[in-house]
């Protein structure tokens, strides 16, 4: 079997196992390319039935506008249940990515996610994480168990033998499941092309208003972005390799405006995609693991 087909079958098998065995699953939807692939796989896994679980978007209120538009359009087209959760407490306290750094990520993403899962009582949450993204992800099982505080214990992971997933948990515990664990960035792009999966236009290069900040190209997506002394807004051909909160997501200068061009660039890329995520380089090479221990995806 060709290797994309093999990855697809594996992911579908995982998604079906979770819905068959877990009490109250939800699929996290971050609007990015990995989420788009995961949503596509969920549609395939249950066809002609709709996915028997809702989707959940943790909105930090700092996402690119185009992302939110895309999310609402997709949910409408597919007639799927799309939940949105915003940490209103953080909003009221004025927490923002410019001033609050890692506290922002913690409050608007990690805490928000934990609150949302608790609010709805979800016992299992699919995430689009891939092992090739980052070193601590490379160590995580497909089924990642979290205690009552949603924390991950990397030193004591449950053995995962063959495709026999043990989904049993005690009251209050939950599972994060990563059906795309074994996919690489190149796999994701090739699959998007092969299956013709809709993605947010921000992935394609286009002239966009940007500023240079700390070595990153940041898009000025709304007027909450205040220019620092010496900064000026320029229009550049940029695209994004990953999508998140616009002030924290660096673009790359590129002319790749089609999937084929993106795939060519990705296969020849010299830097890993996470370099364009500013939050990952916050506190050295172990920052992702620390956040996961605290309940982050």
């Amino acid at each position, binding site marked *: 079997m060709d290797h994309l087909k093999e990855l697809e*079958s594996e992911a579908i098998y995982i998604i079906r196992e979770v819905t068959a065995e877990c009490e109250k699953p939800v699929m996290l939807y971050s609007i990015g390319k990995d989420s788009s692939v995961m949503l596509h796989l969920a549609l395939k896994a249950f066809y002609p*039935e709709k996915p028997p679980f809702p989707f959940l978007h943790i909105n930090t209120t700092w996402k690119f506008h185009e992302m939110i538009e895309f999310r609402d359009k997709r949910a409408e087209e597919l007639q799927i249940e799309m939940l949105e959760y915003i940490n209103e407490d953080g909003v009221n306290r004025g927490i923002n990515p410019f001033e609050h750094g890692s506290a922002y990520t913690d409050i608007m993403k990690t805490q928000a996610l934990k609150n949302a899962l608790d609010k709805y009582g979800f016992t299992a949450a699919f995430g689009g994480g891939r092992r090739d993204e980052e070193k*601590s992800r490379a160590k995580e099982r497909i089924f990642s168990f979290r205690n009552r505080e949603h924390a991950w214990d*990397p030193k004591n992971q449950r*053995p995962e*033998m063959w495709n026999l997933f*043990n989904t049993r948990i005690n009251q209050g515990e939950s599972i994060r499941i990563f059906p795309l664990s074994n996919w690489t960035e190149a796999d994701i792009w090739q699959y998007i092309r092969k299956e013709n999966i809709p993605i947010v236009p921000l992935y394609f290069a286009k002239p966009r208003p940007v500023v240079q900040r700390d070595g990153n190209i940041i898009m000025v997506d709304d007027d909450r972005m205040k220019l620092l002394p010496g900064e000026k807004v320029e229009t550049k051909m940029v695209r994004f390799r990953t999508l998140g909160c616009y002030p924290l997501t660096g673009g790359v200068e590129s002319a790749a405006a089609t999937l084929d061009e993106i795939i060519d660039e990705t296969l020849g890329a010299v830097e890993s995609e996470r*370099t364009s995520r500013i939050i990952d380089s916050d506190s050295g090479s172990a920052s992702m*693991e620390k956040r996961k221990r605290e309940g982050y995806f």
Partner: protein
Amino acid sequence: MKNDLLKFITCGSVDDGKSTLIGHMLYDAKLLFTDQKKALELESRVGSNDGKIDYSLLLDGLMAEREQGITIDVAYRYFTTANRSFIVADTPGHEEYTRNMAVGASFASLSVILIDASQGVLLQTKRHVRICVLVGIRHFVFAVNKMDLAGYDQARFQKIKKDIKLLMSEFDYKTIKVIPVSATEGDNITSRSDRMDWYTGPSLLQYLENVDVSGEDENTGFSMPVQRVCRPNREFRGFQGQVASGELSVGDRITVLPSREQAGVKAILQGDQKVDSCFRGQAVTVQLESEIDISRGCVITKDCNLTVGSMLTASILWMDDNRLTAGMNFFLKLGTQQVPATVLSIRYKTDINSGNRIETDHVLKNEIALCEISTGSKIVFGQFYNHPAHGSLILIDRITNATAACGVVVQNIAEENNLTWNEMDITRDLRQARLGQKAVTVWMTGLSGSGKSTVANALEKRLFAMGKHTMLLDGDNVRMGLNKNLGFGQQDRMENIRRIAEVSKLMNDAGLIVITSFISPYRQDRRSAQEIIGDSFLEVYVSTPLSECERRDVKGLYKAAREGKIADFTGITSPYEPPENPIVCIDTSQNDVETCVDIILEKLEDRIRYGE
């Protein structure tokens, strides 16, 4: 075969250089992003490797691993060359983390085992080979590493190669290759090294790019464990799962296990596409011509020789910190089936070094043993060697939910002993009809002195007077006969309960109403009894408080326990776990015996009435 996916693992003893080997392979084959390369070079400079590049830092991703300089858990790496896509699971070498190594191995079709040229074949090498073989790996590469430190000595290599061949002679494998390498220096990793011109074979990467691991589908027929039933509306009913073996086409006739009902295949869907046929590995939805009863856990088959049974032997790797002893209960997961199961006996454990069988009554973490397992209901399974998807299983701890063991089916015990369950013409139902009653087991549980035996006795007298056919099983009485060879240790206590439950079930099958009176303080034990007895099991909790039981102290046992003369006395030095859902609670300090009997009978009436 070009562009297919090869999943392999690296394993070997601590410090054999597994992570370094993979790190160097990625580095040399230019399969790293520049930021990863930069981070690697930077981190190496502050590390303990004299500023030389420490390739293992690429893989040891956890904080604790980098602090201690060891690999704790499996790391997965992905790379693609012009010929093939690869997923490599880099597994820990420490014995303590053997179960994590097994996780990696169960995922792979080929194993690269590192051997330190100065050390040769070690105990840990043997352990890893044994685990690889156990979980189903049939392709091996031995990388004899640190050849640089061994002066690239051909004689040294030949000696180790001979030891490897000897070690492997014990096992079933399909391909094997031994390659001399240096992971730190990069010899024979991605290209042939000049420093060992006496070696004429391929480099490690060249070999991995070309080795054929496509397990020829050994004519085992079609099989697919059903994951879920898809029923979006009245018109559509499809069975979703991943094809475990063989091929199925529209129009074929299938047999569903365990029911053995048959039907024709109406349609096959792959995603939202209709297809004519499907093959091993594909995730599909199968629609049938006729409505037959199929649910999750059933297996759809065609010309596939699987067993339906409830007794099997399995070769297991025990992974839990607590030891395994015979009589312990688990959930067993096999394919998409999950059932209660009991490890009936431990036949032997395997000496990692010699492969010899050792008699034992317990199995410790990281040990391999052959066990007899019985399942609470019939399941569909096959021998692992021919039917990997139907012959691999895990045992789940019922309290902690931990995956306590993984194992593979060696044999169907009924087959081995020529046992078959004989269906009898005179059924329980016929016997119940003649006796004019429904057979149940009233399981009375409660503290010593709570009044169980008194109430049980009065209950039986009342039922007898009503014309019912009954039998009373009392704790002390059973221990004087059927169970007189049993003591009070954990294993014997479980066996005590198992025998009582089996006897109760036989009596229920004979149509009798059984009343049992045992302290049975542990939930798990009562649950085991319930699994054996089934729906006829009715729990009655005699909830008389401890203070009252102790005040009565009919047998003088509480006094003795307080004085330390009896170890593990329920309520004093060992716990009593009250039932969670008894059909009724009675407290003999609040009600007299006859009232207690009235309360029980009120709940019992409907359950023992024969007919509508």
